[in-house]
């Protein structure tokens, strides 16, 4: 059976700020039911009130080419074919590079524990794998968050934009950082709502790969260059020795 990439579509115009997604998510994970003001190791999604009384859900974008996955030295983060970006805590060494690399500041840490792990939304991977929607989508009473196949949701989003000129004509999350599995629609410009507008559309891992790609070149060219320089200095030394005027020794005697 072919796995179809899933996604979430969040329509900010439909969100009433009831925080059902936040609460159901916390309930499913056994976290405290208090409202959170920011994402944390015990709050994988939150609802923030932003400019103009708009409610914005914060959560992992499940990027197609995640920065967190690319930077993890022990490959503990995986982008699944179903869409969710998941974390294998068993592999983790706790370097927290994923936290510092993520442009959306999504990965959070269990600072209160002696053996802390990174925590973030996994887009209900266990449910999604079995064909169920995410808990947040199921919890949403207004249809502001809907779950579905990625290509179909993109089509649906496009349809809504075409049918209503009030929308900002952009699907946030479809191109940002190379695109992801969580899309936002809004009638207020995204940057006014505090969304991060990337400096470049291309996926972030490409930025490190530009340098990492030079490793073989640096190793072989640099190594050969050094070996060549060594050969030259040795040869010069031999010649000078043969001619009986080794500068270095003369210098050493003087000092």
């Amino acid at each position: 059976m072919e796995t179809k990439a899933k996604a979430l579509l969040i329509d900010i115009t439909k969100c009433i700020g009831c925080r059902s997604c936040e609460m159901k998510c916390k309930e499913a994970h056994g976290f405290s039911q208090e409202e959170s003001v920011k994402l944390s190791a015990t709050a994988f999604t939150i609802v923030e009130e932003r400019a103009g009384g708009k409610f914005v859900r914060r959560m992992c974008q499940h990027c197609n080419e995640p920065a967190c996955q690319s930077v993890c030295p022990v490959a503990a983060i995986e982008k699944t074919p179903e869409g969710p970006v998941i974390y294998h805590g068993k592999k983790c060494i706790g370097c927290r590079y994923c936290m510092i690399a993520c442009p959306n500041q999504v990965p959070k840490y269990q600072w209160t524990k002696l053996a802390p792990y990174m925590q973030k939304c996994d887009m209900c991977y266990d449910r999604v794998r079995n064909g169920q929607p995410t808990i947040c989508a199921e919890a949403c009473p207004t249809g502001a968050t809907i779950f579905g196949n990625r290509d179909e949701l993109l089509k649906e989003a496009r349809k809504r934009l075409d049918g209503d000129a009030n929308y900002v004509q952009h699907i946030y999350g479809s191109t940002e950082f190379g695109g992801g599995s969580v899309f936002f629609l809004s009638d207020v410009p995204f940057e006014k709502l505090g969304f991060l507008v990337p400096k470049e559309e291309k996926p972030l891992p490409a930025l490190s790969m530009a340098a990492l790609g030079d490793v073989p070149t640096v190793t072989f060219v640099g190594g050969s260059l050094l070996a060549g320089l060594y050969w030259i200095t040795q040869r010069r030394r031999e010649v000078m020795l043969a001619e009986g005027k080794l500068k270095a020794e003369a210098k050493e005697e003087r000092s």
Partner: protein
Amino acid sequence: MSRLLKQITFWRLVTAAIFAAGLYGSYVRFFVGWQASTHLSDAQPWGVWVGVGTLCGVALSAGGFAIAAAVYLLGMERYRPIVKAAVLISFLGYSTVCVGYLYELGLPWNMWHIFIYWNRHSVLFEVAGCVIMYTTVLTLEFAPNVIEKLPWVGLREAILHYHHKIVIALTLIGTVLSSLHQSFLGGLFLVMKDKIHPLWYSQYIHTMFYMSAIPAGLAVVIMVMYLSMRSLGAKLDYTIMTDLAKVIVPMLYIYGIFRFVDLVNNGGLPYAFRPTSEAAYFWMEILLLVVLPIVGFSTKRVLENPTALYATSAVLAMGVIANRVNVSITSLEWFTHANYVPSWIEMAMMIMCFAGAAIVFRFCVLHLNIFPRAKQPERWLNAPATA
């Protein structure tokens, strides 16, 4: 009793205090928790243990590969008297960084995972691999200093004979490995294009880390030479320090010009003239890392005075520390609005690691032939006689 009391000197008391604080801090870090021991948070997941401990620890230990390459590969015999000391500095620097990183990791007992779960897209994986390999190379480079003290002549000579044949290869491998990870420590930040302040982000940040690490490493060699001559009785030709300083100047010019051109290209320069704290930190960094050392090392009176050379090198080292802290902390706070100030335990642990390295260095200088035997000074008479 009075002999025992005589053993208690001011610096020994300071050392004891450093270790008491550091060990207590270690206890809190590993057995009480992160929140009690550090001021790290979700907004500032990397603090001084990465920013200073790792980034600066490695950069300031760059002297070993630079001097070893100069002497063994490029035939600069001028620096042969200090090559062992430079390798020792690097060896201790890297060992300290490795130990310090165990504090920084959340799950240090999983550290060996780096050997089995590879991610070649991760700059940190490359850094870890290079640092592990280079620390091994440094151990091998430094080993003969210990081996030559072995009492078994046959074994000793056999090992040293064999070692002599591989020292060139070791130096070559070490130079390549150093070049890679010195730059990749900067490369760690390439992926954070949106989070790093424009005054510090550059697609060449790894190149600039490399360009600033070498002068920093050489500055530390100067400082260690000075301190060894002053308090460990090492008799060295101080004009080697002068020559090192003269080598540093063109390196800093190149770095400074590269940094300036890069800032212009990236459009970061205007930020330097805004009344922000980032701009202030930026100018402090440029002053310490580029301007003051170039002025100092170009002044005849400084070049002829070991103490002035030491002080200027210290300024340069502080400049590199400022640069690494700015990249890893200042520039991020601009994005996250975190307000991170290290906890006293974070500082105490780093100071303890540094003190530990200094103590081992002193021990090695006193008991091994780190500085050339021909110049072994009289003040070492109370140390064990050397073969």
